[in-house]
């Protein structure tokens, strides 16, 4: 299988603080890969570094055979890699549809926008209902959908999802993960950071576990689910 994203010995520093010390991982084309770890393990920092909004201080990030570490975020998204970031970071003053249209900025061909909008509205019908509402007035679940929808609007090859289940009602989480499965079936590659281990391992084929900024364990999702170490040591669960 071709490797779409490969990270080798990634290090990210925030001033003197180390956000990520040594992370290596691979995301094969067409797969769903989970990035697990407790709060502060470095999942968000890793995703931000891939997308270009956290500065890489060491190591390499190879996407489609090209080292993208150190490139600005606006250039990286144009290569086909979109992030639904932590805290959603929506444009709260603007309408739902404007947010989606902004997500389509990297597209060379503006003619594709209507079809992409339609696809996002098909995945998240709730967004179609709220089309003209200001993003800042929506509920947490709707904001999460909008953040994912906005990332999809650039027609990425690789979708990075940061904690898509955080703070959402269980019913909405199920809907959300159903739509990820549907997108995966369409051929989208997904790298998923999750605190909720069960959810992530159910959705993913392969998983990496981070602990204090390092990849400490990896394996197929099925064996990880059965591995007591994952639950006990690395995720702080009994």
């Amino acid at each position, binding site marked *: 299988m071709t490797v779409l994203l490969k990270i080798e010995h990634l290090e990210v520093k925030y001033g003197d603080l180390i956000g990520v010390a040594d992370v290596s991982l691979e995301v094969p084309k067409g797969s769903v890969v989970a990035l697990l770890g407790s709060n502060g393990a470095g999942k968000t920092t890793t995703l931000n570094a891939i997308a270009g909004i956290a500065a890489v201080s060491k190591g390499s990030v190879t996407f489609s055979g090209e080292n993208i570490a150190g490139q600005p975020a606006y250039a990286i998204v144009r290569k086909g890699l979109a992030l639904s970031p932590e805290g959603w970071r929506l444009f709260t003053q603007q309408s739902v549809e404007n947010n989606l249209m902004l997500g389509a900025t*990297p597209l060379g061909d503006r003619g594709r926008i209507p079809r992409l909008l339609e696809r996002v509205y098909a995945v998240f019908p709730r967004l179609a209902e709220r089309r003209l509402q200001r993003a800042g007035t929506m509920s947490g679940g709707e904001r999460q959908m909008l953040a994912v929808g906005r990332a999809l609007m650039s027609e990425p090859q690789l979708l990075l999802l940061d904690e898509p289940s955080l703070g959402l009602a269980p019913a909405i989480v199920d809907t959300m993960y159903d739509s990820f499965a549907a997108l995966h079936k369409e051929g989208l590659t997904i790298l998923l950071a999750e605190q909720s281990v069960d959810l992530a391992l159910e959705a993913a084929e392969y998983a990496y576990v981070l602990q204090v900024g390092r990849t400490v364990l990896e394996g197929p999702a099925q064996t990880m689910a059965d591995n007591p170490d994952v639950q006990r040591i690395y995720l702080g669960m009994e």
Partner: protein
Amino acid sequence: MSLILVQVIVSGLLLGAVYALFSSGLTLIWGMMNVVNFAHGDFVMLGMYSAVMVWTALGGGPFAAVPVAAMLIATLGVLSYFMLVRHIMKGPMLAQILGTFGLALFLRYAAFWYFGANFKTLPDTLVGGSFVFMGLRFEGSRVLAGAMGLGITLLLHFILTRTAIGSRMLAVSEDATAAQLMGIRPQRMQALAWGMAGAATGIAGALIANFFYTSPTVGETLAILAFVTVSFGGFGSVLGALVAGLIIGVVESLSAYLIGPVYKDVIVYILFVLVLWFRPQGLMGKT
């Protein structure tokens, strides 16, 4: 209502539309990047000199001066952004204040050096003197200035709220990092804002030059008016600047007529203080 009162209100509205236009650049820059451009008045001053230069060189009327001033001051805006503002934005607030204030002094004394200290005025005949319409007397230069002021301020508002490029500019102003995730280059949008603000300010200057004296220090007088209009309307809101400009224009002419020209500024500033007392964010500003 007596005809003369109508006349007074109409002149006030025409004046107010010009206030709105030359304040819109200031509010746009603030809204985009939280930077107060203390050189704003001097941008207007250079717009006025552009009109004077076009008239001296070509004998052309305001129709030639307006596009020339728009282009020149837009270029000045973009250059100021890339050569100065972009760098001082990384510094503390004081650096921004001193930086743009320094730019103001530089432009003002460059104007002294190049144009001299003498007041310049454009001949009245350029925009056709005055005419009577429905019993009201209008000066051509003021009607032109008012109509264009209203039109261009509304156009700016339209661009920001209804177009894709406006949406990108607002995205950068709300969250520049998230905008980058959308493939938007924040610096391009900010440079564009400086260009648009410069164009609007240059046009305002070219229009004002038709009925106001031009001198290197005129920017100081106009800048204060622009700051009042912008804080009255709410920093960052183009529509707020429009409404505030119109209110200030009308209040100014009404109080000049009803109480006496000497008191018009007093009344305007009393109103200004009252608005800020009860609504510190201005009429349309965000809290």
